[in-house]
């Protein structure tokens, strides 16, 4: 309903705009309208079988002169044609002046007058500029030859009647047709469609047959009455005897005024008219077309929206070419097409704007859900611990058994509810993230043929995939690569971000330039500027020569900035300046260096979330995200596992110099595996299998796949720095950290809780400070603080009601029994501090 309303509004606005364009556009628009109409609507009309045009030719000029001819000549022609049986004879001889002595004088005038009177069916063309002589022959009728051009200088119609000295003069063609048909002129005029100015639009006939004057003259001189009779009997004859005057442009080329009357005559005799459509109908039709275009632009999916608008345009153009022929209707061109273009374009823009709004909304929603999730995770864990404590209490005290079991029951219910809530939140998050990815990568509905083509093109740049989603990404990459837009690649580690970055380089116009890949996380902070921008000799200790930085190395090529999410805030600012200004100073240099570098950045961290949480600069984020491509993890592209495995196996086998294949069971095992380390993990796995196994056909056990669960046993072995590092990398997201480490989520939670308590002790109980230390990166401090507050509050709630620190510590030992010993000491310190 809302969409229909928007489409209608757009259609009305577009129609009004098109109306204004045609009304105020001036001669340019008129020219455009008619030129397009001439091109699209071939103005062909049938040729009247009863029309004979006799026109002066070179042979007749050679015999009778090239100036105006003696009227005695015309008198003979009129007599001959009348005797031959012509139904009407039109003559273009001007009647303004008597004949000069050199052209027969009064004798020729009498001859023509006599011949005209004898024939009784002669129609003369009259010039509107000079008066008709009192000595003019007694013709049956006269007709004007006016044909005013349109504003673009082209004649398309003839005014049927003009006023002259208070008398109405009809056009020569109509007057002649009336004499030929022996009908009153008014009868004909009533049947000819005219515009508001009384002009009839002609459908032109470029193939009107013209008989040479010399042919008629020869027949007359030889007295060949039969020849003349065959030529003109029962026909309307228009004689073009005057030297051709100025010609006017018409849709079929330049024609003289009288030749235009011949076309008019043909139109009268064949009904060859173009009918203009009234303004009202044009408005209605335009509105309907614009509404259709707007509706298609809004309602159709993906590229079919633009296709729909184009189809409306093409359909109308086809109508323009096809409809006038059989119907004689002259369809408007500019107004409907302009309205369709405007309405279609506006609808597409509206859609685009809607999609962007939705994207922004989704991003905001995802941020909110994440915060909620962090709190819910903590709540679940807290409840779990409470439940555990309650159970322990039940075991110890049988007296309070009933009461406690009630408490335990209540806790269990709360826990179930909290878990359910968390699961739901997580599902919501996953759904929103999927939506976000789909919105960012555009329509995945590609045809099979397109997919096949894309598959081949992707393989050429080393991207092995059968997944439509990845191929859609690749298609976007192709487009982005051609337009030198910055590309931001997102995705878990090992999903192929560098491969995509290299592909972007190879597919871009810069392919011949250098590709420089830089892992920003691996650069020591103090060397950041020197590495990226270079330095001049002596600018700092150790700078013994001039050195080009990565930016200069990548001049006219592509600079791939991997792990961009790890950049410190001050480095983010410096990078932003270079991206904005395209110039920088080498360390120690006084002159700026200008480079032409295309940036492809990548991060396994969610930079959008970084912006929300404050650890990534928003302006840098928007500068980098020309096109964002979110590479899916391998577990979301199961169809690719087998193909990738085959590829890596082949590489490994080639290195080892032997033939190795995978058993079907092994392929199945690979496909079932979760691959937390993504493609890179798969690659390592197969190389390891080739190296360690001696079998030619690898079985599942040769792959040494570790089950994701059960890794908890390993947990204790990993040191706190490793875990903290992993947590930081995953933005303190418990689930993804657990997946990366291959642990149970609660194990990770316990480790973070322990680290948090330790940090709180170190910071003297200052939660903000502790969170900053733990986060390492100030941008992560907020999320860590949220968790720390939750843990600390829970601890404090757990020891409420105890009289002494000892009793509280004893209770905590039972309640936080999963906390590693080294961290329990921190907890103990916190408890004692509380009671102090």
């Amino acid at each position, binding site marked *: 309903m809302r969409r229909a309303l928007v489409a209608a509004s757009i259609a009305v606005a577009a129609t009004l705009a098109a109306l204004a364009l045609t009304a105020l556009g001036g001669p340019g628009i008129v020219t455009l309208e008619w030129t397009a109409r001439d091109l699209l609507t071939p103005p062909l009309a049938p040729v009247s079988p009863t029309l004979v045009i006799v026109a002066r030719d070179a042979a007749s000029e050679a015999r009778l002169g090239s100036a105006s001819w003696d009227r005695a000549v015309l008198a003979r022609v009129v007599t001959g044609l009348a005797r031959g049986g012509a139904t009407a004879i039109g003559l273009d001889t001007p009647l303004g002046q*008597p004949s000069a002595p050199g052209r027969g004088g*009064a*004798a020729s005038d009498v001859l023509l*007058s006599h011949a005209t009177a004898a024939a009784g069916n002669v129609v003369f063309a009259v010039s509107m500029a000079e008066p008709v002589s009192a000595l003019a022959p007694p013709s049956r009728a006269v007709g004007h030859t006016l044909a005013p051009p349109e504003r673009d200088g082209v004649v398309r119609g003839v005014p049927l009647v003009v006023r002259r000295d208070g008398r109405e003069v009809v056009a020569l063609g109509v007057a002649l047709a009336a004499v030929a048909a022996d009908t009153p002129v008014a009868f004909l005029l009533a049947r000819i469609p005219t515009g508001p100015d009384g002009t009839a639009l002609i459908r032109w006939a470029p193939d009107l047959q013209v008989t040479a004057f010399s042919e008629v003259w020869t027949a007359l001189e030889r007295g060949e009455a039969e020849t003349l009779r065959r030529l003109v009997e029962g026909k309307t004859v228009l004689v073009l005897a005057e030297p051709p005057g100025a010609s006017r442009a018409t849709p079929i080329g330049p024609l003289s005024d009288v030749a235009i009357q011949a076309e008019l005559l043909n139109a009268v005799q064949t009904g060859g008219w173009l009918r203009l459509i009234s303004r009202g109908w044009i408005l209605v039709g335009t509105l309907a077309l614009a509404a259709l275009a707007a509706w298609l632009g809004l309602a159709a999916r993906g590229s079919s929206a633009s296709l729909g608008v184009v189809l409306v345009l093409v359909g109308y153009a086809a109508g323009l070419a096809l409809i006038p022929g059989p119907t004689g209707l002259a369809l408007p061109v500019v107004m409907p097409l302009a309205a369709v273009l405007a309405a279609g374009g506006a609808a597409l823009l509206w859609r685009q704007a809607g999609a962007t709004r939705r994207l922004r909304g989704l991003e905001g929603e995802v941020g909110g859900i994440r915060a909620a999730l962090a709190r819910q995770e903590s709540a679940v864990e807290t409840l779990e611990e409470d439940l555990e404590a309650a159970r322990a209490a039940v075991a110890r005290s049988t007296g309070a058994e009933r009461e406690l079991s009630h408490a335990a029951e209540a806790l269990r219910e709360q826990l179930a509810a909290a878990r359910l809530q968390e699961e739901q939140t997580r599902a919501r998050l996953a759904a929103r993230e999927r939506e976000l990815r789909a919105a960012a990568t555009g329509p995945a509905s590609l045809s099979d043929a397109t997919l096949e083509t894309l598959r081949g093109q992707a393989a050429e740049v080393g991207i092995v995939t059968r997944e439509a989603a990845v191929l859609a990404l690749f298609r976007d990459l192709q487009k982005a690569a051609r337009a030198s837009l910055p590309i931001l690649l997102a995705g878990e580690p090992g999903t192929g971000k560098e491969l995509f970055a290299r592909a972007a380089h190879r597919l871009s116009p810069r392919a011949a330039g250098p590709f420089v890949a830089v892992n920003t996380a691996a650069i020591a902070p103090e060397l950041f500027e020197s590495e990226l921008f270079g330095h001049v000799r002596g600018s700092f200790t150790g700078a013994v020569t001039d050195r080009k930085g990565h930016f200069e190395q990548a001049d006219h090529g592509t600079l791939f900035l991997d792990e961009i999410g790890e950049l410190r805030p001050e480095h983010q600012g410096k990078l932003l300046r270079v991206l904005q200004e395209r110039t920088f100073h080498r360390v120690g240099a006084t002159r700026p260096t200008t480079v032409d570098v295309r940036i492809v950045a990548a991060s396994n961290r969610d930079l959008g979330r970084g912006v929300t949480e404050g650890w990534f600069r928003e302006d840098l984020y928007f500068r980098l995200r020309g096109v964002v491509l979110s590479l899916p993890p391998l577990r979301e592209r199961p169809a690719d596992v087998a193909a990738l495995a085959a590829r890596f196996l082949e590489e490994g086998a080639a290195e080892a110099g032997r033939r190795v294949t995978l058993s079907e069971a092994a392929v199945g095992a690979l496909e079932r595996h979760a691959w937390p380390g993504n493609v890179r993990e798969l690659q390592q796995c197969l190389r390891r299998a080739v190296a360690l196994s001696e079998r030619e056909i690898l079985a599942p056990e040769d792959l040494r796949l570790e089950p994701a669960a059960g890794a908890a046993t390993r947990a204790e072995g990993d040191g706190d720095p490793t875990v903290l590092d992993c947590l930081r990398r995953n933005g303190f997201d418990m689930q993804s950290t657990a997946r990366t480490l291959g642990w149970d989520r609660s194990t990770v939670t316990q480790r973070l809780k322990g680290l948090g308590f330790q940090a709180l002790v170190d910071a003297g109980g200052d939660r903000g400070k502790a969170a900053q230390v733990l986060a390492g990166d100030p941008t992560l401090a907020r999320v860590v603080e949220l968790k720390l507050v939750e843990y600390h509050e829970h601890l404090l709630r757990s020891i409420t009601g105890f009289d002494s620190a000892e009793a509280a510590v004893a209770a905590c030992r039972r309640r936080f029994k999963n906390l590693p010993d080294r961290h329990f000491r921190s907890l103990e310190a916190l408890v004692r501090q509380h009671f102090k």
Partner: protein
Amino acid sequence: MPSDTRGVPPESTLPNARVQLDRGQLLLARGDAAGAASALREALRLQPDLIAARSALGLALYGLGDLDGAVEELRTALRRQPDAVDARLALATVLVARQEWPAAREELERVLAAAPERVQARYTLAVVRYAQGDVAGAIDAYRRVLAADPQQQDARYNLALVLKLARREAEATPEFVIAAQSGHARAQYFAGAAYADGLGTERSLTTAIAWWVRAAEQGVPQAGEALTQLRQTALGRGSRAPAAAARQAAEQAFTEYRAALWKDFPDLTAATDEPLGAVLLRQGRVPEAVTLLIREAAALSQPAQQLLETLYEQGVDGRLPAHDARILAYLKGAAAEGLRPSPR
């Protein structure tokens, strides 16, 4: 074509400009405009103020088609001698050729003011007034020409034309007839047309045929075509089948015309079964016989037609060779018209 130099003194013997002028005028009168222009230029070289030579040079240049040059020479002459009537008349003639009607009329009126007896000037003035669309003025001018010289049949013919254009048929037709009687070919055609249509006179197809035959014999194509049309009517042919009455009237008119031919030969007794031409032929009056036979055949006399065909094939011993050109021209026309098969 070599120019006719009989009676013209050779160039080397010319002692002075006057002789060159005489020579130039003589050549001009003979139509050798180029020779005249050369002699007159020589005269003017010897004596630049010789006005008569300059006037004549103007006319010579007009004859050569150099209208601008002619006007220039004549105007120069008139500047030096404004009362040179011949030069002014010549200038008016050239201006008429250039269709400069107001200027021509002005010059002509000046000529007539100085020399009212100049009929040629008055005639040209009539032409100019017609060309200007001044019908009444043209009629008046032609009437004055005829008052001065009633034998000016061209003027009479033109007067009749203008009267006809002014729809004054009753005045026009008698003038056409007078001019026709004097032998004016086109006047004969129009006189015929007036009788055929009964305009300004009683309708008489017989008289019309008589005038048209004479005009056609003088080469007026319209007369020939008018006769052809009348014959088609009489024979019931043509694209639009003529009414029976028209056909009968035409047929009768030709019969009456043939009968009327005998009146020109009072010494002969009219015969009903024999063409007049045959009688004349028997009497040995061969040229007259051929003329009359052609007239009778053209007036739909079958015996005359057959006799002409025989004459064309065989001739008359010693008097008329076979394949006579006049008879051939007639037979060809008759064949084109569908009267008889074409002669071999």
